[in-house]
Structures are given as structure tokens and as C-alpha cells.
């Protein structure tokens, strides 16, 4: 099944929650979905016998770097507003089709519903997206930092406007 056909099926079933079919200039197209409905869409994709996306291949968070850029005198900058995205690459190991889902949230309130209940695989990937980008996954069973220290309080390093703290636990950070 092509991704266009899957988009039609989803659009029919979920209506408003399926925002649009994004055709990229290069690489892959993806289906944009409402971040607060993504778990229902994924549960449907997983359980429907014709689609049967039994495998979440990858889950990645992205900083879209699209807010209003405010540059300080020392060259550091900050984005006011802007969005974060999460991309889901799904695959069906028996039906042999693939699809990419995407969802976009405001940086001010980065709430996405977790899909850990559908694919256990999402657990660590969502923790990673939370750790590095600060995307807040609702209903996640164990949302802690994973790669950074548990007590890292200087923000989320993979955001484009991340700045290193001066000190961490009394140790100087920039070297």
C-alpha cells in the first residue's frame, strides 16, 4: 500500500486529526497528524489487519528552528516561539509497507501523546526526545532523562538555541 492510500484511509477514519499529506522536495513524504491524537492513529495503524504496522522503526524529535531569531551581542541566539516535530517511521513486517508520520508542537507547550503503549520500542526513543529536545510525552510510563545526567538542569541540548551552562555540580562546563 502506498502512503497516499494510507493517508486516504486515515483521513476517512480520523478526519480532523489528520492534518495534511506533506510532499517533500527531496526524500520522503509524510502524513502530518495532530500531536494529541497520535496515539489513537498509531493504535489503529497497529491493530488494523490490512495495515498492520507492527514495527516502529524509528522515532525522532526535531527542532524546526523556525521561531523569531533574537541574536545577543556575544553571538548567541535564541528562538522566540517556533515549533518542535516528532517523526515516526512505521513498517509492517508482513505486509511489507512503510509510512512516515509527523507531528508538530509549539515549543511553549510541547505535549505529544506517547505511543509506548502501542510499540514498547518507543519508550527509550521518547525518553531521548524528551531529554535532548524537551518534548513532553503524555502518558509515558517513565519519562526521565536518558543520555544526559538525571540532574542536568540547563535545558535540552539538541535545541538550536541551547547554551552550555557555566557550571554543572560545581564543575566548569566550557573547556
Amino acid at each position: 500500500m502506498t502512503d497516499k492510500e494510507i493517508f486516504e484511509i486515515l483521513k476517512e477514519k480520523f478526519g480532523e486529526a489528520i492534518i495534511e499529506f506533506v510532499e517533500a522536495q527531496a526524500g520522503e513524504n509524510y502524513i502530518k497528524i495532530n500531536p494529541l491524537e497520535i496515539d489513537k492513529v498509531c493504535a489503529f495503524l497497529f491493530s488494523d489487519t490490512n495495515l498492520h504496522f507492527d514495527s516502529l522503526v524509528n522515532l525522532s524529535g526535531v527542532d524546526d528552528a523556525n521561531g523569531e531569531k533574537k541574536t545577543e551581542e556575544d553571538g548567541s541566539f535564541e528562538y522566540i516561539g517556533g515549533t518542535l516535530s516528532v517523526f515516526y517511521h512505521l513498517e509492517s513486517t508482513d505486509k511489507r509497507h512503510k509510512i512516515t508520520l509527523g507531528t508538530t508542537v509549539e515549543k511553549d507547550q510541547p505535549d505529544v501523546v506517547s505511543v509506548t503503549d502501542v510499540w514498547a520500542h518507543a519508550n527509550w526513543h521518547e525518553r531521548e526526545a524528551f531529554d535532548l529536545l524537551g518534548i513532553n510525552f503524555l502518558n509515558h510510563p517513565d519519562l526521565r532523562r536518558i543520555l544526559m545526567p538525571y540532574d542536568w538542569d540547563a535545558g535540552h541540548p539538541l535545541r538550536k538555541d541551547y547554551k552550555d551552562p557555566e557550571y554543572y555540580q560545581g564543575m566548569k562546563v566550557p573547556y
Partner: protein
Amino acid sequence: MALNTEEMTLNMGPQHPSTHGVLRLELRLDGEFIVDVKSHIGYLHRCFEKHAEAMTYPQVVPYTDRMDYLASMYNEFGYALTVEKLLGLEIPERVEFIRVIMGELQRIASHLVALGTYGADIGAVTPFLFCFRDREKILSLFEMTSGARLLYNYIWVGGVARDLPPDFLRLTKEFVEYFKPKIKELNDLLSFNKIFIDRTANIGILPKDVAVNYGITGPMLRASGMKWDLRKDDTYSVYNKFDFDIPVGDGRMGTVGDSWDRYYVRILEMEQSLRIIEQAVEQIPDGDVSSAIPRRIKPPVGQVYGRVENPRGELGYFIVSDGSVNPKRIKVRGPSFVNLAIFGELCKGHMIADVIAILGSIDIVLGEVDR
């Protein structure tokens, strides 16, 4: 009289000899039995993804080496393939063949480390050194090709760094002939050793459906009885030109998907890799290896997910391009990272010694788990 007993928390790592790097396991024990395992990672986090955002596309290649440092060739292979997919590049056939030969040699080298260290975890030290002896031969082949023994920076976007040295194909053939009996030696010494089987069979059983749900890939998934190999199921490069089988675990010594199956699938995979190398060495065409290397890489706006079958499983690169010379985001789906996530589930109800046996059979490389 009721004895007052309590659970014990044991911290294994991050400097423990058997955690294969800096992994910290928090074991909750009831005597010698495992109640719960929590893995804490991140001790080797080097911000690969953040670094990559400041690099141009070709500059990222040496960084990918340093993720899974036991399978550097394959990391470059996957990265190059993904960027080429984004750019829509056509690659000369000789380059594809060289990449496949390198990739399969790397697979053997990586599996040798996995098998050897697994033997050492179980207590047999000698197979470890035998494996390293053979791995050295592969590293020497890499050294004469790329000049490095561990981190090669050899496979570039659009080609490879330099052509094969004149003797390479002959020496590779010699290596294949040399290595075939060594697999039997390893089988005699370790695989079919009664104690080894007792320690690994029926330990850490991973059923197929659970494996798929956890996103497990590579030898670990195949040991659970699932015939799934990206080289065949989502074929890339020139793998469709070769004749090889996908070994799966058959529960010969216990249950399908136990630690022994995960171990033995790797042995069988080495044999298949030898077959691929033999065919590739025979069929390799002549040609220019650097003709397709782009002078300046500036892909259009878009995103792409490319994946290869790394020795440990599916290595995926998710690249988002904003149309500049720097990637906007590179996300690596490392097989070690994903395969480690299920570790706690596998350990429940087993003993301390089994934790080591299960961890070794997963074959993680912390450089990739933490990136």
C-alpha cells in the same frame, strides 16, 4: 520462625568488566535471583547529533565511525547511503562492490568480537583470544586499504576514499580460505561445549512478537526465529546480486530465541558473509571509485530515513535537510540502543550469572548506545 529477608540492590558498572563499556545496571536481587534490572546509559554520550549539526555532510563521516567503533565501516556505509538517497546520486558499481566487501568483512570482525567476548563472559577466555587473532587479519586488510585499523573514514558520500590496493583481492581470498576452518575450531571449542550450552540455552528467551514490538533487529531478532534481514528484505547497494541465506534461530539447544540461539546465529552469519565476500571478489568490476563524489553537498529541503543491516541490527539515519550545507538534524537509530531497551525484560527471574550471559548475547557497543 520467619527469617527477615530483604531485597538487595547491586550496582553493576559503570566500571564493571562485563558491561562491555560504561553501562550501569541497577540490579534488585532476591538472593542470587533478579527481581528487576534498570539500565542507566549515557556515560559515553558525546553529542554526536549535536556535533553533526555544525558539520558539513562529508565532515560527518569520521564522526559516524566513532559510534559503533566495532563496525565503523558499516556506520559510514549507512551514512553514505542515506545522504546519497537524499541527493539522488548514482554510484559506480565498483564502489558498491567495495562497500559490500568492506561491510561483510566488518560484519565478520564485529561478530568475532561479539562471540569472543561472549565466551569470556561465560568464563572461557581462550576463544576470546582466538577470535581476536582472526580479527587482526581483517583489521590488517582494512589497514592496507584505508590506513587505519579501527576508525577508517573510508566510505565517503558518493564513493570511497581510495581504490583497493593491488593485493587486496588476493589477500581477501586467502583470508576467506584461512577463516573457514577457524569457524569449526570455534564451534568445537565453545559453541557445542556442554557447559557453554548449559549456561546459555533457555536463558533470556525472547519471543518473536515481543521482539518486533520492541523494535529488536539484527541477529537478536533472527535468533527469535524471524527471517528478517534488510540485506534481503529492503535490499540496498548490490546485495541483490549475491546468493546467501538468512540464518535464523531454531532452538536447537533449548527454546527459540534463547541466548545460545543469539550466539549461534552470529556464527552462521559469518559463514554467509564469507559466501558474499567470495562472490563479490569474483564479480567486482573495474572502474573509477571517486568519479561520483560530489564537490559540494547541498541537498534540497527534505528529509530521508536510510537504513542498513549493521552487524548488530538495523542502523538507521534520519536526516533532515534545510537546504544548507549543514544537516539540520541527524538522528541515529542505533541497533545497540534499541536492543538494550529490552534487557531488563529478559533478565527477570534469572540469576546474576545470567545477567552477564544475556547482556553478552545482546552484543551492545556503548559508543552507539550513548552516541
